[in-house]
C-alpha cells in the first residue's frame, strides 16, 4: 500500500513540475495554491494529465478538500485502490 502511495506521489510531483518549473521545491506538505500558485485552471489541467497517467477519473467535487500535495496524492491513491 505504502509503495503504491509513494509511486503516486512521485508521479504527481513529476507532473506538478511541468506546471511550476523544474526548480520548484515540492514536498508532501507543499500547499498547491499558496506555494505553487496552482490556480483553478491549472489544477483542472493537472488533473486531466493525472487521470491519463493512472487511468482514473477524479470527480471535481472531491478537489474541494484538497490543499496540499499529500492530500491530492491520497485522493488519487484512494480512487486507484477503489477501481482495482
Amino acid at each position: 500500500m505504502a509503495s503504491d502511495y509513494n509511486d503516486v506521489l512521485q508521479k504527481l510531483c513529476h507532473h506538478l513540475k511541468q506546471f511550476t518549473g523544474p526548480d520548484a521545491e515540492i514536498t508532501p506538505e507543499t500547499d498547491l495554491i499558496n506555494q505553487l500558485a496552482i490556480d483553478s485552471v491549472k489544477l483542472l489541467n493537472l488533473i486531466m494529465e493525472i487521470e491519463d497517467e493512472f487511468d482514473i477519473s477524479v470527480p471535481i467535487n472531491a478537489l474541494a478538500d484538497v490543499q496540499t500535495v499529500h492530500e491530492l496524492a491520497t485522493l488519487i491513491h484512494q480512487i486507484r485502490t477503489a477501481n482495482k
Partner: protein
Amino acid sequence: MSLLDKLEAVAAARKALLPEDVEVFGTPIDAVYSSTEAKIGDRRILFLGTNNYLGLTFAPECLQAAHVAIDSEGTGTTGSRMANGSYSGHRALEQEFADFYQCHSCIVFTTGYQANLATISGLAGTGDVVLIDGDSHASIYDGCRLSGAEIIRFRHNDMVDLEKRLRRLGDRSRSTLIIIEGIYSMLGDRAPLADVVKLKDTYGSTLLLDEAHSLGVLGKTGQGLVEETGLVGEVDFITGTFSKSLGGIGGYCVSKHPQLDQLRYVSRPYIFTASPTPATIASTRAALRLLRDGVGLRQQLWRNVHQLYSRLDKLGYQLGPEPSPIIATILDTPQQALAIWRGLLEHGIYVNLVVPPAAPEGNSLVRCSVSAAHSSEQMDYVGNAFSELRKTIFQ
C-alpha cells in the same frame, strides 16, 4: 482572511488587470436605439456582443404582445408557479415549445441559467455521475454542484476522452448524465452530437444538450444542433434560453420523456423562484413564431457570420475553430485583449472581453456576437476596425 478581505482581494486583482477609467465589465449603456445600436457616453455604438442573433428585441410583434400582456395581466406574477399558479401564458408557451420540438414535455423557467440549474439538479443526485464537457457554461457547472452528483469533466469535444471516462465508470455509466452544448459560448464551435449519441447509447447513459446559443441559429426551423444533425429524437433532454435568439429572458427544457414533468415537484430552482412575467412570456411566444418561420433571418445571419469570420481570418487573427455567430478572436495576453476591446470601443463597436479564468485554456478573448439585424456595411466597418487595430497593437 475575513469575508470582506476576500472581496478586497478581488478588487485588487481587477485593478491590476483593468483600467480604472473605463468600466469593462458592466459597461453603462446610456440609451438603446435599436437591436444593433446604442449610446455609451456621448458616442453612438454598434452592438456586437449581445447574442441578439435574430435581432428580435425590437420586433413589432414581440413589442405588441408584451404591451398587451402587461396591460391585461400586470407587471409580475409575484411568486412561484407551485404557490401562485400557472398563468395561461406559461402553459401555452410550454405547449408551443413541446410542439416545436415534437416532444412530450416542456417546462419553462425564469432564466436560462435557472433552466440548467433546475434540470440538472432535478435529474441527477447523490450517487449519480454527471459527465460534462470541459468548456461547459457556468450554469452547467453550478447545476452539477447543486445536484450532489459526482462531477467528471472530459476534454472539450474529445470523443476518445469521453469514451475513456464512460468505460472507467463501468455499470455506473447507466446512472450518468452526459452534458454538452449545441454551440459553445466561448469559441463558437459545435458539439459532435452524432458521436456523443452513439456513445450514450453504447453505455446506456442519458444525454442533455444545451441549445442556448444554437436555438434560432442552426436547423431549418431553428431548433438548433438537433435539427441540423437530424437527431432530435435521440437526445433525452434539451435546455435553452429566451435571452439570445428570442430576445427576452427565461429558459426551457423539453424532453421526449414524460418524467420531465416530475421536475416541477423536486427541482428547487423551479419551485422556489417567481415565474416569468406575463410580458416576458408573451414576447417570447411571439418571438418563437418568428424564429420558427425565420428562414430569411437565419440566411442573413449566416451571410454576416461568413463575411466577418473570413475577413478576420484573412487579417491573421487566431479565431475559434469554425464560423458561427460567436466569433472569438484568441489573444495571447489579457493586455492584448483589453487593447483590442478598447480600440474597438473607440471605433464605436461594443464587444465582449473575456479574460482568465473565464476563457478556455487560460486564453483571453475578444468575442463578437453577430446578428441577422447587422448589415453587410456594418460587418465591413467592423473588419476595417480590426484591421487598423492589428497594425497598431501587434507592431
